């Protein structure tokens, strides 16, 4: 006999029932865990991508102004631009920035020369480079030969690398090269007194839209202004979509598999006599549903926890994370990701709704179909009859 416990008898009996049909329960467990793993991995990945981006971009400027002409981007005269921007109320500390994309040893790299381009949060106490030196991102550092880096095609510049950006800022600094303005200007085709663009912070972020129009009118040449919420929105959409596609691609098929397995595990005609017997002893259909739901919970909760834990490991534990990122993003470079608790909670809710609810409904419907006959009819399935 079973030892005394403090669990409700129905739960104990559900556990005993699982033990009686161990193989089927294992099958269900494996199916559920892998389904949760795949879903949660995709969702956690997109959440983490999003959260990481948000963290890195926290100090990014609200608006960026670039001068354009017939041929595309044009250099921005610093003094004129600063004077124009300062006239607009609500604009605070307009900062000219020096940066651009130049050819590197292995594909293009982003050269930055003013600190305004690189948010504080990414620097983590790295000292700024002096003349002839550079700080580079992980992607650039990989292609280095002997600590020296040469950039540019016609005005080639060679610098020595003194530092690399920390790995967990990879999403923003992967292909970055940070050098002094004097080293960078020839590479970017600028003369002193010119800048690539003008970064602007706003007193009230809600006024973003109104100020954009004022700014555009204030400059003597045509400009293009990009705001933060548009770029953040684009990024958010992209991150969510990468998770969504993975879900859409794999989940419905797996869900169907889960429903079929649940159907066969929960319901089989050999148990009809068992249900009939229970009913003849005073069990109601609702009791049987409770029993089956308890069974499903005992198998399901550990399976969900295991699936979530392994998905967490796959997204955030470095060696596995590389493979995951490769799989989910289709081979882009790997950022080190952070998770925010609200995002994690949202993933939990989404998993509960997408996997938990259909699973419970399948358990419920199959139980109902098997057990809602009259006890006499059910008892007739007994081999003795």
């Amino acid at each position, binding site marked *: 006999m079973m030892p005394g416990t403090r*669990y409700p008898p129905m739960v104990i009996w559900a556990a005993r029932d699982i033990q009686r049909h161990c193989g089927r329960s294992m099958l269900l467990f494996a199916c559920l865990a892998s389904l949760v793993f795949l879903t949660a991995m995709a969702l956690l990945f997109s959440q983490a991508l999003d959260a990481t981006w948000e963290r890195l971009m926290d100090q990014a400027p609200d608006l960026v102004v670039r001068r354009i002409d017939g041929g595309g981007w044009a250099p921005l005269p610093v003094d004129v631009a600063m004077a124009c921007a300062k006239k607009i109320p609500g604009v605070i500390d307009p900062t000219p920035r020096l940066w651009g994309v130049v050819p590197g040893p292995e594909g293009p790299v982003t050269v930055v020369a003013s600190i305004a381009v690189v948010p504080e949060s990414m620097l983590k106490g790295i000292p700024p480079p002096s003349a002839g030196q550079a700080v580079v991102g992980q992607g650039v550092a990989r292609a280095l030969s002997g600590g020296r880096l040469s950039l540019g095609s016609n005005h080639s510049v060679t610098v020595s690398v003194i530092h690399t950006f920390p790995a967990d800022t990879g999403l923003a600094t992967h292909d970055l090269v940070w050098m002094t303005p004097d080293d960078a200007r020839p590479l970017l085709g600028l003369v002193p007194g010119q800048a690539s663009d003008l970064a602007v912070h706003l007193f009230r972020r809600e006024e973003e839209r109104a100020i954009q129009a004022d700014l555009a009118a204030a400059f003597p040449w045509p400009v293009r202004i990009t705001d933060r919420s548009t770029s953040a929105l684009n990024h958010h959409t992209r991150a969510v979509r990468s998770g969504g596609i993975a879900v859409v691609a794999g989940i419905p098929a797996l869900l169907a598999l889960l429903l079929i397995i649940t159907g066969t595990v929960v319901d089989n005609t050999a148990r009809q006599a068992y249900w009939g017997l229970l009913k003849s*002893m005073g*069990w109601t259909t609702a009791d049987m549903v409770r029993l089956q739901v308890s069974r499903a919970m005992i198998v399901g909760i550990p399976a969900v926890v295991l699936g979530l834990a392994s998905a967490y490991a796959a997204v955030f534990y470095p060696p596995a994370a590389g493979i995951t990122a490769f799989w989910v993003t289709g081979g882009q470079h790997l950022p080190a990701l952070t998770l925010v608790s609200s995002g994690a909670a949202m993933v939990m809710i989404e998993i509960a709704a997408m996997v938990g609810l259909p699973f419970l409904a399948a358990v419920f419907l199959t139980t109902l179909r098997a057990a809602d006959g009259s006890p*006499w009819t059910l008892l007739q399935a007994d081999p003795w009859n």
Partner: protein
Amino acid sequence: MELNAGLVCRGLNFRWPGKNADEPPVLEAVEAVFAQGTVSLVTGNTGSGKSTLMHLLAGLLHPTAGEVWADGQPVSRWPSRHRDPWRRQVGIVFQHLALIPDLTVGENLLLPMIPRPITWSRMQEEIRRQLEDAGLSALADAPTNTLSGGQRQRLAIARALVARPRFVLADEPTAFQDDHHAARICAQLCDIAREGAVVVIGSHDPRLRSFDGIDRRFHLASATLTGAAVNQGAP
């Protein structure tokens, strides 16, 4: 004779569904009162319909006409949502026992108790008591399919009694028993009745017919239950 306590059959008719209308019904116009605190014995030849009557009384089968009343309530007319939980007051011993072979003896006794609002330790206590009464204490952890026929039958009786039912319906409870155990089972059923239960035994075992703990004897033949009128007022 109080009508409100016990099991009462009123004009009970039963015909198996799908059988020809010109065939005689299994039960016809059965009037009977199985009063509280009494042991009733229903005898009859094989195939006369004793088991069918038991199933009707337990609410497992539906009468084609007439009603079964329990404690003044027409339970046979209740919808299944109410009849199913009412059956918690019924302990039925099936003729073919209907034990679950891969469960242990103790677990078979646990089955009727699980949906009831009693604690786990209470359940264990009741099971222990019931196993002692049935003389099966030593076999509590044995799988049911290792028991002898008689032991299995005693287990089936213990399962019917373990939740202290108000109505005990025993179909051939002594079929596989030696004389000693048959007497013991009769005494056990009488004790239950003295505590206030309604006990109905369906059997053609001659040993039961001569047992003196029986309060009422009914005979079932050609679809009618006789002997019913002896101790009974008009329903």
